[in-house]
């Protein structure tokens, strides 16, 4: 049974900021930027933070949309992470349909950025959208789990549905997060941060 019409309420999209899912910040990118960071509002107030991104259009063709987290308020984005990455895909021609794990797109105790989506096309009508969930980033006892799902038009004109999961392998509190393209700027896009009480 798909989430269907209930997904908006469950996941906390725009317009559902009442009650216990609260919109905390919106980064509206209307001109090219190298990164989009959230350096405040990530505290112990919420047990879960949800980042919704859509209309993410890269300035450069065939790049990755990715994120990293910080334990020093955004001065450095280099926390150790171990992640998984698998993806469904299907070409506009109907060929190459399938789902598979992608070894080259995961991290094993890496400090680099986590790929949320790969091979983004930058045609005028192409854009990436999805959501990232980050659990209890303020914990000073446990690692910080996250997972994401994102859909992207591949630069070679097929649909990618990317699933990532993993953890920031630190017992320091995570208090900032940054999104970027692997190369070039984010042309336009919107990222919203929600807190779940």
């Amino acid at each position, binding site marked *: 049974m798909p989430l269907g019409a209930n997904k908006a309420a469950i996941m906390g999209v725009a317009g559902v900021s009442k009650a216990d899912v609260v919109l905390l910040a919106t980064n509206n990118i209307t001109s090219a930027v190298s990164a989009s960071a959230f350096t405040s509002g990530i505290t112990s107030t919420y047990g879960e933070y949800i980042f919704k991104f859509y209309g993410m259009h890269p300035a450069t063709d065939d790049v990755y949309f990715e994120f990293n987290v910080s334990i020093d308020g955004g001065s450095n984005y280099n926390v150790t992470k171990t992640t998984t990455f*698998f993806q469904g895909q299907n070409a506009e021609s109907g060929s190459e349909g399938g789902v598979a794990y992608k070894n080259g797109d995961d991290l094993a105790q890496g400090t680099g950025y986590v790929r949320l989506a790969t091979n983004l096309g930058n045609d005028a009508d192409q854009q990436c959208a999805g959501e990232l969930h980050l659990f209890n980033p303020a914990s000073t006892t446990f690692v910080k789990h996250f997972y994401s799902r994102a859909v992207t038009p591949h630069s070679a004109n097929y649909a990618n549905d990317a*699933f990532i999961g993993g953890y920031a392998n630190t017992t320091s509190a995570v208090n900032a997060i940054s999104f970027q393209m692997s190369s070039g700027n984010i042309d336009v896009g919107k990222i919203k941060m929600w807190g779940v009480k």
Partner: protein
Amino acid sequence: MTMKLLTTNTSSNASASAFTSSIDSTYKVYVFKFYDINAATDGVQFTFQGSTDGGSNYNTAITSTYFASYHYEGDSDADMGYDGGQDLAQGTGYQPLCNDVGNDADQSEAGVLYIFAPSSTTFAKNFIVKSNQCGAGDYTQEQFAAGYFNTTSAINAVNFKMSSGNFDGTIKMYGVA
């Protein structure tokens, strides 16, 4: 539509964490968010089951699916696939939310369980799980489970526990109107 926090269970070295009230026809969807779940015993499953008698018995028939992706911190192995050991076929046991969890001091599990229209007396009760965990052998694992309670009786309680041993952690129950 709004999502309302109904109950928070914070467990410390507990054998189980039950929600035995407020699961009724008020909400169409019940959402259980869990995080900082830390097992006392290494290599066990974090599980749940539903009750049709207010929590006296947790033994509702379930048919479910379960697949996962994993990746070792040492990069020795990574893959995804269906895990036939974690699904149920009309089973009355507990459904795994996570499998082979680690019990190191910094290891934990986090995720979400959705149960749709548990008070229905006409239909089976569908559920969806998505979670991420620290595996006992130091790996990350993302899990996807789904299925249904195969009963036309109302589900009015839900219980969480490890397959063996106690656990710490936070589980929150929300209602979606």
